[in-house]
C-alpha cells in the first residue's frame, strides 16, 4: 500500500486571482517579503501497488487522466509506504 499526497497548483504562467488576493491579505496583516502566492488543491489517496515505481506510474496516470487539468495546472506528488 502506498499513500500518495498530490499537490496541484495553477501554472506559474496562468494568472491566479485567488493567490493574488491571499497575497494582499497577508501583506495587510503585516507579513513582508512574501511573494509568488498560489492557491491550489491537495488530493490524498492510497494505491495498492507492488512497488514504488508502479505506484508512481499509476498516480501519474490518475493525475493526467482526471485529477489535473494540464492546460492550467501543474502537479507534484510524494509517495509513502504504508
Amino acid at each position, binding site marked *: 500500500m502506498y499513500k500518495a499526497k498530490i499537490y496541484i497548483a*495553477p501554472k506559474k*504562467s*496562468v*494568472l491566479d*486571482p485567488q493567490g493574488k488576493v491571499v497575497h494582499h491579505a497577508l501583506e495587510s496583516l503585516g507579513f513582508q517579503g512574501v511573494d509568488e502566492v498560489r492557491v491550489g488543491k491537495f488530493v490524498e489517496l492510497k494505491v495498492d501497488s507492488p512497488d514504488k515505481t508502479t505506484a508512481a506510474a499509476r498516480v501519474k496516470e490518475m493525475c493526467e487522466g*482526471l*485529477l489535473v*487539468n494540464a*492546460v*492550467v495546472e501543474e502537479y507534484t506528488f510524494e509517495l509513502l509506504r504504508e
Partner: protein
Amino acid sequence: MKFGVIVFPGSNCDHDCYHVLKHVFGQPAEFVWHKETSLKGFDCVVLPGGFSYGDYLRCGAIAKFSPIIKEVRSFAASGGRVVGICNGFQILVEAGLLPGALMRNRNLRFLCRNIHLRVENPETPFTRKLAKGKVLKIPIAHAEGNYYADEETLKEIEGNGQVLFRYATEEGEVSEGANPNGSLHNIAGIANKGKNVLGMMPHPERCAEAILGNAGGRGIFESILSS
C-alpha cells in the same frame, strides 16, 4: 431539426433549453440522460448549464467521463451540431472537444447579470443569421467563466475564426471594462476548427422569448435552425 438536451446529475438549465427548442421554436426535442449510449436520430445536441457533479474537482471534470460523451465525440466528429452552454462549455473544454480551459472568474465572484456580446464570426451554423459586429444582450451566471488558452492556442483559434463571441459594451466596444470575468481576448464563446461545436458561457436559452423582456438569444437558435 431534432434536438437532444443532455442531462447530467446536477444539470439545471436543461428544462430552459428544452422549453426554448420545443415550445418557442416548435422543434422536436428530447432529454438524453448522461448514461445513454446513442445519439441516433438527433440533428443537434445541447449540453446545458448547471452544476454537473456539483462542480467537484473542476467544473465538468467528471461529466466528461459520462457514457454519453463518447457518443458526443463521434457525433461531433461526423459533423453533428453540438452546443455547450455554460457548464456545457466547461464540459466540452474538459473533454477536449474545444480548446483551452475555463477558470475561476478574475474577481472571484459568481456573476449573475446581463452582459453584451459582439458577434465576431457570422460564418458558422450558430451565427449565420447574425451580422458581424452585432451586439446581443444575454445573461451570464457563473463563477468559472474565465477563458484561458496558451499563446499558441490563442493564435490558432483567432487565426481560424474560432472566436464567435466576445464580451463588449452595449455599443459593441470590446473593452477591458466590458469583460466580466477576465477571459483572455474577451472571449465569451468559441467553436472548434470544424465550426460544428459551439461553447459559450452566456445563456441564450434565458432570453429567447420577447415576453421575458429580452430576446437577445433568439438569433443563435434561428441560425442553428437555418443551417
